[in-house]
């Protein structure tokens, strides 16, 4: 990466080839002709830092941006919730990896101290005494106000912060100005620190440019995860839960401009954790077929509601809670489609095909309505558990219907004659028994009118399971 024609950062591969920080463009190209030189883009850097800040808002609302691409988090109040410093650091590190960035992470009792440790990647200090020990060993030029005076400090043999602290304060202030003393005091916890905390925007909209043209929908999952992570942070900062999100998959602009593909995810129950969203998205992307390569990805939270913290019961219910079930059905619907995950919605109709209606499981049906549709005495209607999608016409042998073996009627008929308003059915239903003792639900079509003298036709319509 270059800034003003000087190398600012190098990849490990380039470092191995001998490229070093501070080289000129020509020098780099001589050492490594295939090197990819990228101009530093401050706007993009700020965007990336903002994305990280959004994602980290889930750990604490007290998050401030400091000099030199650093974020300061006040985690004093979050330690218990996230299970201690070690675990919190691991989570933050994992989030950074998911977002596709690398970073140095440090903890200290003072924010400026943590900043200094992080700039040198010098680990964690939990107690004030150990922080002082570690800070004393850090180079003095770490503090930005001391950098213009680096040669002077070197000249008087003052190499690290410990040496700098031992210098007389009035003299140091006269030569280097007030900011250096303020910074040292803040780092060593001698003066209180004030920050401008980052406030999350009121609406959420995040965008991401992909490094490459993506042609497979499921390859987008990793990029989408980054956006979801930012969404999580934003939701936590606002104490909100999301009920509907939309992904915009932006296509490459070829000869014709193409509208972005939308992936809309609606949840039955609002959530503020990303695991469930990632699982749903995975199933949706696996089904999606892209008609053009994707170059960008944007996420918008369309519908949010106040976060409802989970109510823990004293004795947890065996076998999962109501939310678990709702989530499971959402996941099934995401992969199989809403028309394949069904719940019963019986209709009060005499015709068996119409009475046996099933609707998508996420449609809400009032219990009273469903009960009103059921007949009062269920046992007065002999119905088979399996209903054939289409009745099978039965062969006739010796004036008896035949299905594998001759069928013997074992019940009196039930006459169903309804539907003159759309599909008329005039049938006499019987329970028949085959020679293998399986029970079948068969009917004889009643033919009225001109063809009344025809042979009766028999159909198989159900199986008693």
């Amino acid at each position, binding site marked *: 990466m270059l800034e003003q024609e000087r190398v600012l950062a190098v990849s490990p591969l380039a470092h191995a080839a001998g490229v070093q920080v501070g080289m000129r463009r020509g020098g780099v190209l001589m050492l490594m002709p295939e090197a990819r030189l990228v101009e530093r883009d401050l706007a993009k850097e700020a965007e990336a830092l903002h994305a990280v800040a959004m994602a980290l808002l889930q750990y604490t609302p007290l998050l401030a941006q400091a000099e030199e691409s650093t974020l300061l988090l006040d985690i004093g109040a979050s330690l218990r919730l996230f299970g201690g410093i070690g675990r919190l650091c691991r989570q933050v590190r994992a989030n950074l990896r998911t977002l596709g960035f690398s970073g140095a992470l440090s903890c200290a009792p003072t924010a400026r101290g943590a900043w200094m440790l992080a700039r040198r990647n010098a680990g964690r200090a939990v107690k004030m005494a150990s922080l002082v020990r570690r800070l004393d060993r850090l180079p003095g030029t770490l503090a930005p106000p001391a950098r213009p005076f680096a040669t002077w400090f070197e000249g008087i043999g003052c190499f690290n912060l410990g040496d700098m602290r031992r210098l007389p304060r009035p003299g140091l202030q006269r030569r280097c100005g007030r900011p250096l003393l303020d910074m040292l005091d803040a780092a060593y916890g001698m003066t209180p620190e004030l920050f401008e905390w980052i406030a999350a925007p009121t609406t959420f909209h995040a965008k991401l440019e992909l490094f490459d043209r993506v042609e497979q929908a499921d390859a987008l999952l990793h990029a989408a995860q980054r956006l979801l992570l930012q969404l999580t942070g934003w939701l936590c900062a606002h104490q909100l839960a999301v009920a509907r999100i939309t992904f915009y998959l932006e296509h490459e602009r070829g000869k014709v401009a193409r509208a972005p593909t939308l992936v809309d995810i609606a949840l039955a129950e609002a959530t503020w954790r990303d695991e469930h969203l990632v699982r749903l998205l995975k199933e949706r992307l696996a089904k999606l077929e892209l008609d053009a390569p994707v170059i960008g990805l944007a996420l918008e939270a369309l519908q949010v509601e106040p976060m409802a913290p989970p109510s823990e019961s004293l004795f947890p219910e065996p076998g999962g809670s109501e939310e*678990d079930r709702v989530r499971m*059905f959402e996941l*099934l619907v995401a992969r199989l489609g809403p028309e394949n*995950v069904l719940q019963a919605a019986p209709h009060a109709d005499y015709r068996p095909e119409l009475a046996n209606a099933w609707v998508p499981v996420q449609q809400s049906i009032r219990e009273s309505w469903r009960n009103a549709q059921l007949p009062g005495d269920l046992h007065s209607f002999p119905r088979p558990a399996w209903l054939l999608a289409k009745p099978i016409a039965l062969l006739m042998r010796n004036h008896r219907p035949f299905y594998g073996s001759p069928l013997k009627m074992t019940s009196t008929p039930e006459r169903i004659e309804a539907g003159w308003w759309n599909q008329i059915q005039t049938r006499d239903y019987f329970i028949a028994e085959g020679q293998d003792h*399986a*029970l079948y639900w068969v009917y004889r079509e009643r033919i009225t009118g001109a063809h009344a003298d025809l042979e009766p036709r028999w159909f198989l319509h159900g199986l*008693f399971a």
Partner: protein
Amino acid sequence: MISPQQHLAPERLHPSLWRASQLAHSSARCVDTGYPTLSSQLPGGGWPTGTLVDLLLQQAGIGELRLLRPALAAAASRRIVLLQPPHAPQALALAALGLPPSQLVWIRSTRSADTLWAAEQVLRSGSCGALLLWQNHARSESLRRLHLAAQSGETLFFMMRPLSSAQDASPSPLRLSLRPAAGGLDIGFVKRRGPQRDAPLFLPLDRPLTPSVLQQHHASLDRPLSVPLATRGVLPELVQ
């Protein structure tokens, strides 16, 4: 004082040991089958929960749901999932069996991989009372996977397969074959943790309905009369 006979009882050494002549003690919670003759033949005295139970059917619609009716009705406080049944389930009939329509979920899928995935999701979530899965061909590794998934919860899990799969190996500890018989079912014990039983167990099942009930609720059917009615007083011309 423990007699030497008792001392050597294998279940005293380890709870999962049993003699070949006796039924095993089931470590899983069991749901009563509702049929005492069947319960006495099963280890643990009922259908085990959190286990793959293999039911091998001669064909669909021979009374398999009537066999499971008491157990499913007991599990109906939570959802009952019918995964890839052979035909459309009829809510009215299941309601008559004691399964309220609000608790029924019917899942269809076109691919076998999706079916197995859905079964695994249902079992792992553990929030459903029972899962009934119909599958014609299942490879042994997918059976093993489903059995493992079943063990993570307390869902009643029945897998319905054709009778021809009885020859294939299965990780399921309980495999029963079901054949229709006059007035009930013949249950063969293909595999159980207990003594081998070759003779099938005949289990009488309720018939769907007795005809007498029908006659009370429905008008009688008009049938062609065998004796022609004598015309009394009215002229035949007027009748036409």
